[in-house]
């Protein structure tokens, strides 16, 4: 069975990520490592940058590019928390709630974020597709409690009072 086309009959065929400039970027990346496998994490980052998440079809494509099996790639994807295995909101918000931030009020920040984004729960996407909020472990910015990440942007010293003003920047 040919996995590369992806999807059942009637679904839109899977457009490959690694064509043109993306393929060139991948080739340059491979030059940094003595094995193709070592490029797996950065290759998955490229997929997520382009598609917003890492689908099963993308895992198959990556496995072909790096001469691995799809099952192996999935095993690696599922180990790391930052690869999205399903689509997420346009703005993916990660809030640190580990103890040092917890001692400085991180729980209230989470509550306020859920309220003001309209996300029903942690991990659920808001009805307008704008936001997904999750709790994460230590973001490594403990002196600036509470840090949050909105996609790739780091925002420090967030308090419940600052939440609505922060969210208004992300349309």
């Amino acid at each position: 069975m040919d996995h590369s086309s992806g999807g059942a009959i009637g679904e839109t065929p899977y457009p490959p990520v690694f064509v043109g400039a993306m393929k060139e970027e991948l080739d340059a990346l491979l030059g940094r490592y003595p094995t193709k496998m070592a490029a797996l994490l950065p290759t998955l980052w490229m997929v997520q940058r382009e598609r917003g998440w890492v689908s099963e079809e993308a895992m198959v494509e990556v496995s072909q590019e790096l001469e691995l099996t799809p099952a192996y790639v999935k095993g690696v994807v599922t180990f790391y928390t930052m690869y999205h295995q399903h689509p997420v909101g346009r703005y993916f918000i990660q809030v640190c709630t580990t103890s040092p931030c917890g001692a400085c009020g991180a729980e209230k920040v989470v509550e306020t974020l859920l309220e003001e984004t309209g996300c029903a729960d942690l991990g659920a996407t808001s009805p307008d597709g704008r936001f997904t909020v999750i709790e994460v472990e230590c973001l490594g910015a403990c002196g600036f409690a509470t840090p949050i990440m909105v996609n790739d942007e780091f925002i420090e010293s967030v308090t419940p009072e600052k939440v609505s003003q922060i969210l208004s920047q992300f349309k």
Partner: protein
Amino acid sequence: MGYPHKPHPKETPILSKYFGEPQARTLDGWKERGGYRALQQALGMTPVDIVNVVKESGLRGRGGAGFPTGSKWSFMKPGDGKAHYLCVNADESEPGTFKDREIMRWTPHALIEGTAIAAYAIGAEVAYIYIRGEFTEPLRVMEAAVKEAYAAGILGNNAMGSGHRVDVHVHRGAGAYICGEETALMNSLEGRRGNPRIKPPFPAVAGLFGLPTTINNVETLAAVPHILNNGAAWYKAMCLSNPKSTGSKLFSVCGNVTRPGNYEVTMGFPFKDFLYDLCGGPLPGRKFKAVIPGGSSVPIQTMDEAESTLMDYEGFVAKGTMLGSGGVIIFDDSQCMVKHIARFARFYAHESCAQCTQCREGTAWTTKILERIEAGGGTMQDFDTLLELADNMTGKTICVLSDSCAAPVVSGIQKFKHEFEAHITGKRCPFRATAAA
């Protein structure tokens, strides 16, 4: 100075001198501040001479274990006909620690310079800087600095015209605390799940891609150019207490404290002055209750213990804990220790790679029991169960993640048993507001 607060006169700003100065990030700015003189000098020395200078300085690993850096480098045998690798551990994920982040954000060339010197000293032509996935800004800054260093001929096949090859690549992790463990980091770099490896073989024998490898922390490598510029004797003289602990050390401070942030002090500095003078003491109307001085994996200290501690590797051990990564977490009298210890346990349960049974099961059960106690459902038998679990989680697994989960539980029960008992007898958390009552 320790960004973001103003420099304190009692600090020893060496690594942190240029934190907060955007010009220091650029190659030109770094050269104006004396950058890359040490690398130029190193490339004209023999690798053995560099290793000896670092040994003589007394520099020890700043990532947590405190292993002497020069000795670690000397395990790499030049001329064995094999490719050697250097890994830079920039996977700073230990709760309470955020010093490597500032080194990379403000002085990326300090890390590149230290990395290049170390690579040459251990006979490695390629070095990988493994940065945790969440550090998007340090990643951008480091990538830009590496690009500049290549364009200027500092890195590459003929580093600074020396005829030696020094390649440095930045590699982004993807969210896994365990990848800060050295062999898990190597597996992750190879494109595998971040499971720690059984040792031996040690990395110096079979590390990255099965070849001889040295792995150093960001702060350790950032100190190396200063040692070459100023001499081993200068570095060794920075010592206020035990001669086995030399140099300056960055401490990250967080939790319930007036001035959180990074502070750089000479090894052996009194912890009491540090907490009350440099960090400004507790918030108004509050008292400090407990300190975890070396990141969440080290035992908790009471204030009596902390206030009599001298801040070096031996000083923290003498007072029942460890220097660890230098992440100082402070809790004041408004905080429930049971809640925080339970939260730390949850952290380790989440971050366990799950390959060892004692860790996979132990971290999960510890979390479950602690959360039940915190919610008011504990019994006096839970102490024995928790301590037995902790015993089974200590010294019995491939890496020390499960030991790290046990440390705050055991020290927490020892030192704050009255808080656990108050939860059990009162059937509720005494720190929670009694709105309903």
